[in-house]
């Protein structure tokens, strides 16, 4: 059923080589359909973040084609990409909040600077507050990023990514370096965004429980908590990267049944933990 959904992001044999001859991606192909959440895992330097940056047009492929919303963006100029990027939201690895701006200014930044997004001045503050309320940090509007904890910074960065209501979200290691409780809060926000606004997402993470949470839980708007999915399933696809190549793409059951020793390292099973 998901295959019939429109394609939001498509990589066709994409390779990325940086100056100095370092190959970051090698022949990567995949197709993200509307409503899907893709969990991308892989060792450090395997090209996970490069996939997201290439999707965003921040890194240009040396070969292959990238399609966003069924439009070939491979050869688009930087100024043409600005309009397309307004339909994407991205959470960067270290949050990448602007140090010199307050939380409110950070969240308002895309509303003020995305040319294709027209927001009336009087609508600006309510939108910023709404986005901050979504991440439960409305009280921090006047604070600077340096005054916030790591987890709060991630949440503000999520607010900045979702304030324009983009249909496609890219999360680069949203839980990396966080304690389990904060990491769970961040993943709950990602699930909440998926279920409340029906967004499509790519989530880079090496924590298997993050993917597990996305695949098996839904946001309950009444209780404000995550409930296990009963009957049916979430549209979650797992991808594993290795040395710039996509070595696995499939459902959680396929991932768990994989005999590949590399892929197996990204799967956490009770019997494995016990051993």
């Amino acid at each position: 059923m998901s295959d019939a959904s429109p394609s939001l992001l498509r990589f066709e044999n994409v390779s990325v080589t940086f100056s100095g001859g370092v190959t970051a991606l090698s022949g990567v192909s995949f197709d993200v359909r509307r409503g899907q959440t893709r969990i991308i895992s892989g060792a450090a330097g395997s090209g996970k973040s490069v996939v997201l940056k290439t999707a965003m047009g921040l890194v240009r492929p040396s070969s292959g084609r990238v399609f966003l919303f069924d439009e070939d963006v491979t050869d688009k100029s930087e100024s043409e990409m600005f309009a397309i990027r307004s339909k994407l939201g991205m959470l960067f690895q270290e949050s990448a909040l602007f140090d010199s701006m307050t939380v409110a200014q950070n969240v308002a930044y895309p509303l003020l600077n995305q040319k294709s997004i027209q927001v009336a001045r009087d609508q600006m503050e309510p939108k910023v507050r709404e986005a901050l309320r979504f991440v439960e940090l409305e009280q921090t509007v006047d604070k600077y990023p340096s005054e916030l904890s790591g987890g709060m910074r991630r949440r503000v960065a999520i607010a900045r990514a979702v304030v324009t209501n983009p249909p496609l979200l890219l999360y680069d290691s949203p839980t990396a370096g966080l304690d389990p409780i904060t990491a769970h809060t961040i993943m709950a926000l990602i699930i909440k965004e998926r279920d409340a606004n029906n967004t499509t997402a790519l989530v880079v993470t090496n924590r298997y429980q993050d993917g597990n949470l996305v695949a098996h839980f839904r946001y309950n708007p009444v209780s404000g908590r995550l409930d296990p999915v009963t009957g049916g399933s979430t549209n979650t696809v797992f991808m594993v990267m290795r040395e710039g190549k996509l070595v696995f793409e499939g459902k959680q059951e396929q991932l768990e049944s994989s005999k590949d020793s590399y892929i197996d390292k990204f799967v956490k099973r009770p019997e494995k933990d016990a051993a």
Partner: protein
Amino acid sequence: MLEFLKSPIQAVQDFYGLTGRALRNIARKPLYIDDIFLQMDTIGFGSLPIVVLTGFFSGAVMALQLGKELQTYGQTGRTGQAVSVILVRELGPVLTAVMVAGRNSSGIASEIGSMKVTEQIDAMRALGTDPVQKLVTPRLVATAIMLPCLTVIDDFIGIFGGWVIYELVYAMPSLQYWTMAWTALGWSDVVQGLLKPFLYSFPVSLVGCYYGLGASGGTQGVGRATTQAVVWASVIIFVLNLFIGKIFVSGAASL
């Protein structure tokens, strides 16, 4: 065989590319006026104390040394002339630019470099802003406006420093000093003295931006970018100074 030349040629090409984009953006919208004023305050007003201090002491030491040498020929009265010509033509613009480069090229490189390694530059692009438009052009415009102003202040304070020594050490008449200092200057000196800081504003601002935007490898990379920015901005100022000086000297000789 010429492999070793590839990297510096690439760097020069990239630097010219950045300069071209920064200049082109002046005529493009949005022009970040707030950022220009903020940078004018940081680069201009913020550099005032060091410019005043170095200007005063360089003028004073120049008067001290030149007065001593001129005394040999019974020409101590010409100290004001020598101090003002040297300051307005050469030392004022170069010294101010080098001081501002030391303070601001490093500051620009470390600020933009930190933004680069923490992905804030990527975030800016992702959120619809051209980093050159937002970060580089305001710094270039602010430096191009403020460096000539700082140079004029430095020149005056330097001449004032020379007068203090002239008065205290050599006990010569003040009017003679100021008359000599004023009449020694021609229009060509003034043009040279203002054109130089305007041209130096390019290396002072853009070298910092160039190294900042190219920073990689965490805090170590930011430190490296900062050092390189100060070194190369200063070197370019001295190289430019020779070429501009040569143009004016040749021009004066042909008159």
